[in-house]
């Protein structure tokens, strides 16, 4: 899965004009920045050219008129151009900066929104770190290429044209000779810029390998020590650090040969101007000021051409980023409301102006946002077959009906399809064939947002958000009062440990909840799910990774949580499983056994085996933990 994501820095051999046109069209929205930006780039280039002309004008003036030269006018004109020039600099930095940052901000917002709407399957194949880079560095980079690229390209082209026009205007024969250096200059610039980009890519690649190397060696330092691998590790690491050294030196050599070559070309042009122009001036056919202007202009071709080459190369380098970002923006969510459902939601919204915000055990007559019944009386799997993208079939022709108030426990080996069943219930995925019915209606004919707002889910690894305890519980229902938050915490026995924290409910949980133990995090995630007051409650291995003590706390709260809801429980702990109304043993995507706890035990089948080994394991744990406690007493 990851191999394809490591080649993200490929260099695009040719510019994809279609792609860049699409990206450019997005920036057309920022007319207030875009047009003034073009204007200031043009004015700036004109000013650059005028400075050279002023020098010529002044020199010719003093050579011709001596002390009678109009010095006052020189100062005034020079001052005026300086002011215009500096004003342009001020405005282009502001405009390009504004364009970049607004563009990046808006693309980022759009991408983020898209990620919120995309189905789980999208995230299954893309690591979080990869997605983060799309939203941060890719967006910034693209915006930079657009903002500063437009500026530099406009400026560069205008300046090159201005210089060429000035040269041709002053003396077209000599001008043509000097302009002769432009093609080689442009060619060399393009070649070198590309080389430098490639070698700096190489450096970045080694750099990320070196980072990974450090990471691995620090995390595995005990293993390194026990295997006495210090010297071998260093040798392996050195192959990376040497490779990076070589790439860095290569890049430095390219950079430091590129500039001398182009500046030498520049002085060749200046020399040509001085040589041919010198004869003309000596013969009186050209003024001294014009000669100086020629020499100056000839030396300045390098600057805009270098900028143009650099920007074009950058666009090639950023093309992959552009493709990725546009690709994300253009992805259509595979799971979303059908047009028919959208129409129903719209119709319902107009007929009922202010729907009740919370579905507190809706009455049978209450309606959901899509106009269907708000209450869930039954969920039915009808001949459901499912497989993950390109994967083997994990659920075969699965049938199951669950009624309101029922608790279903799913047990069986990992990979048997338990988690898939609950993911399908939550419509995180949809069946490949067959259908899932809510109150007898295919759930694809109901609103996705409505269904998902009826869920309460507790996962094996509870995820908390940065913030305080109260905010995290309230995530279950944003409108809940403080009293309701505390009531939920009390029901799952979390209140006690919360009040013992330094700031009670206002205590920070740390990043990802790392200031709390797994058990405490799990209690909070139970409180959060309970506060949502869901009609469907899902527990996915939620009690497997916590200690016995916390588990007992949770058990006492489960009664309240399960009552009146449809609950799906994937569990190892016997205390949880025993509580279920029905237990399904799932193996190989099918129901192998089902029944109540007692029925299944009597059958002495697969459940019996699972049960006895789990029972033994829990007792062993209890004995070991108990002995620790005895010793302390």
């Amino acid at each position, binding site marked *: 899965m990851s191999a394809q994501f490591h080649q993200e820095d490929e260099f695009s051999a040719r510019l994809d004009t279609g792609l860049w046109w699409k990206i450019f069209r997005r920036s057309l929205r920022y007319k207030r920045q875009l047009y003034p930006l073009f204007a200031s780039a043009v004015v700036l280039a004109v000013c650059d050219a005028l400075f050279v002309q002023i020098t010529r004008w002044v020199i010719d003036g003093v050579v011709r008129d001596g002390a009678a030269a109009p010095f006052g006018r020189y100062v005034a004109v020079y001052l005026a151009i300086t002011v215009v020039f500096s004003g342009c600099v001020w405005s282009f930095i502001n405009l390009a900066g504004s364009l970049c940052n607004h563009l990046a901000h808006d693309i980022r917002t759009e991408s983020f929104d898209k990620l919120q709407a995309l189905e789980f399957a999208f995230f299954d194949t893309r690591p979080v770190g990869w997605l983060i880079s799309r939203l941060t560095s890719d967006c910034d980079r693209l915006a930079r290429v657009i903002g500063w690229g437009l500026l530099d390209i406009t400026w560069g082209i205008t300046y090159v044209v201005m210089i060429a026009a000035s040269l041709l205007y002053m003396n077209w024969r000599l001008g043509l000779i000097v302009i002769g250096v432009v093609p080689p200059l442009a060619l060399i610039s393009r070649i070198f810029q590309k080389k430098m980009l490639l070698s700096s890519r190489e450096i970045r690649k080694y750099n990320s390998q070196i980072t990974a190397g450090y990471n691995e060696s620090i995390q595995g330092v005990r293993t390194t020590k026990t295997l*006495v691998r210090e010297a071998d590790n260093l040798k392996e690491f050195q192959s990376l650090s040497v490779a*990076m050294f070589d790439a860095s030196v290569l890049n430095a050599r390219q950079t430091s040969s590129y500039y001398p070559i182009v500046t030498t070309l520049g*002085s060749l042009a200046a020399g040509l101007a001085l040589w041919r122009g010198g004869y003309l001036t000596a013969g009186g056919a050209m003024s001294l000021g014009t000669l100086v202007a020629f020499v100056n202009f000839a030396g300045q071709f390098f600057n805009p051409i270098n900028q143009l080459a650099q920007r074009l190369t950058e666009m090639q380098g950023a093309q992959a980023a552009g493709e990725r970002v546009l690709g994300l923006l253009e992805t259509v969510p595979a799971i979303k409301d059908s047009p028919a459902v959208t129409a129903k939601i719209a119709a319902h919204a107009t007929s009922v102006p202010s729907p009740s915000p919370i579905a507190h055990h809706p009455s049978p007559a209450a309606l959901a946002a899509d106009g269907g019944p708000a209450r869930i009386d039954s969920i039915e799997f009808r001949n459901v077959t499912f497989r993950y993208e390109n994967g083997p079939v994990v659920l075969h022709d699965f049938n199951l009906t669950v009624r309101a108030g029922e608790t279903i426990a799913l047990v069986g080996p990992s990979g048997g399809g338990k988690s898939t069943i609950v993911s399908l219930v939550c419509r995180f995925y949809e069946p490949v064939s067959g259908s899932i019915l809510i109150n007898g209606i295919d759930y694809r004919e109901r609103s996705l947002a409505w269904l998902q707002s009826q869920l309460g889910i507790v996962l094996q690894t509870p995820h908390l958000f940065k913030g305080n305890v109260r905010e995290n519980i309230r995530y279950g229902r944003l409108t809940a009062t403080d009293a309701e938050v505390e009531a939920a915490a009390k029901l799952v026995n979390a209140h006690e440990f919360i009040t013992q924290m330094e700031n009670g409910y206002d205590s920070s949980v740390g990043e990802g909840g790392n200031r709390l133990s797994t058990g405490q995090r799990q209690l909070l995630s139970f409180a959060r799910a309970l506060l949502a007051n869901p009609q469907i409650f899902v527990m996915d291995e939620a009690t497997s990774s916590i200690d016995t003590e916390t588990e007992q706390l949770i058990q006492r709260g489960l009664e309240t949580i399960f009552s009146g809801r449809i609950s799906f429980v994937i569990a190892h702990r016997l205390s949880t499983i025993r509580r279920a109304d029905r237990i399904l043993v799932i193996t190989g995507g099918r129901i192998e056994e089902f029944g109540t706890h007692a029925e299944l035990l009597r059958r002495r089948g697969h459940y019996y085996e699972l049960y006895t080994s789990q029972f033994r394991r829990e007792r062993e744990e209890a004995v070991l933990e108990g002995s620790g406690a005895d010793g302390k007493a």
Partner: protein
Amino acid sequence: MFSQLQVIWSLMRGFRLRYGCALGCLVFVTVLNYGVPLVGSAAIDYAVAHKSLDATTPSLIAGLLRLLGGADFLRTHLWLAPLAMVLLAAAAGFFSYLKGWQASLASDGIARRLKDDLYDHLNHLPARYHDKADTGDLVQRCTSDVETVRQFLAAQVMEIGNALLLAATALPLLLSLSVPMTLVSFALVGPLTIYAYIYFRQVQHVFKEVAEAEGALTAVIQENLTGIRVVRAFARQEFERDKFATPNARYRDRSLHLMRLMAWYWSISDVVALGQLGITLIVGAQWITEGKLTVGMLFAFLSYLGIMLWPVRQMGRILTDLGKTSVALTRIREILSVARESVAAPIPAVSKAEGRAERADPAQPLPPLTGRLAVRDLHFHHAGPESAEASRGALNGLSFDVQPGETLAILGPSGAGKSTLMHLLLRLYDYTSGSIQFDGRELSSLPRAWVRAQIGVVMQEPFLFSKTLRDNLRLGRGDAPDHEIEAAARAAVIHDTILGFAEGYATLIGERGITLSGGQRQRVAIARAVLKRPPLLILDDAMSAIDAETESVILQALRERRGRATTLVIAHRLSTLAHADRVIVLDHGRIIQTGTHAQLSSQEGLYRRLWQIQTSVESDFKNELKPA
């Protein structure tokens, strides 16, 4: 400031000559670069404008003209001047290339050495250091801080050298051409430098704000994406969008703020720089009419000013970067200044046990361990204040013996000190007092490398490297032939699993490859340890994620190897414990029971209670069914 320079100077050890080369090249570049406008100036004045040499001609120009064959010769051979200009530029370019190359060899060489040193040092730091260290922070120091230092060494050192060189040479040169013109041309350069410095000092905190805003934005995105299942589970997309909007807008606005400041800086510094050029041009022109200056000379001054202004405007940034470099260096040196694991630590206390332990003679190569261990009155406490946390894993006077080839199981609640004992045997920690003897030699006198080479250890959460499976197994013994690798994999019941992967033993694992389950990782680690053929094998809860049946197959395979390896097994499961010759029960750092399976199951205690579960399952289960 001075001490920082000293640190940088010592960092350059071994590369100072290269820096010398680079600086030498820089001198050539500077001098040759002066030549180009000078030749242009001379040609304009004396060859084109027909000025004749007189007393006002600066000696430098006169010398240059002589070099080119005299003014008259140049007039008829005007091509000589452009040729000289191109040659000078080419020569300057050549030296500039050499300079860049040498500077890169030096700075990248230093950076490479620093990286290698850090890597090696981290591998040799004691386990206690790593217990407390934060991986992310360490990696940050080793990568981005080193990069900051490298950039300083590569670019800033040369830029500062360049600026100093320019200041040291340009002034005398220009003064020799024309004193009043020099004063006019440099009137605003001083204020410009000061302005640049003050400005960059002021915006320093804005740079930081932007970086922080970006960090906050990334954190929000990361939180959302790692918790995307929770977001969906509660259908909180709207809420998340709002949460994201604030840092996203803040990052934009902070960046815009920085841009506005930059716009002011560059436009004002442009006004000053252009003003300087303007003053030079106008005053110069005035003086030309008064005959005090020639057109060529004005051309030269304008050209020099062009060369000088850019470094001056960059100076503020360079000086502020110096502060960043100094912080980065301090962070790097914090790691390097921590003492490495000693090769052979002194015995902390004289062993009181019967007979003095023999100290290993460092000169004598040690024979392989036979597998006899003796532990006497062993104490260990974690450093730090006395607390419930610190007493976890402490050892309070442990004594036991292990015979060669024996399998000893260690049982006890978590925090009893089982893993600590393993760490002491591996010399990952050093014991506070008491004695551990390997074949009668005191452990603390034995070289760590030798000790660890004698032990094969498998931890509960074993660490595998992101290499192929074969390479991971081979870490146990580098020269192991393929058939032995496979035999070890078979013993650990992982061979068939490996063959099930598309690429078999060549399958890459870890971040860039496939992810193994906990049980698979444990089995690979067991195979790795078996392949090592160590005289002492330690299994530290190494089969917790392996099912009982497989575990018993593995233990059977290990048993067949018995006679070769002494084995210490930390385990909770009775099925594992039953394979041991002897069991010791540990609690609070003391041995509370010891004996064979038969002895312990007839004594009251932890072991028996565990044993009873086995038989009680059936009766408990009958009880449970009664009410149903």
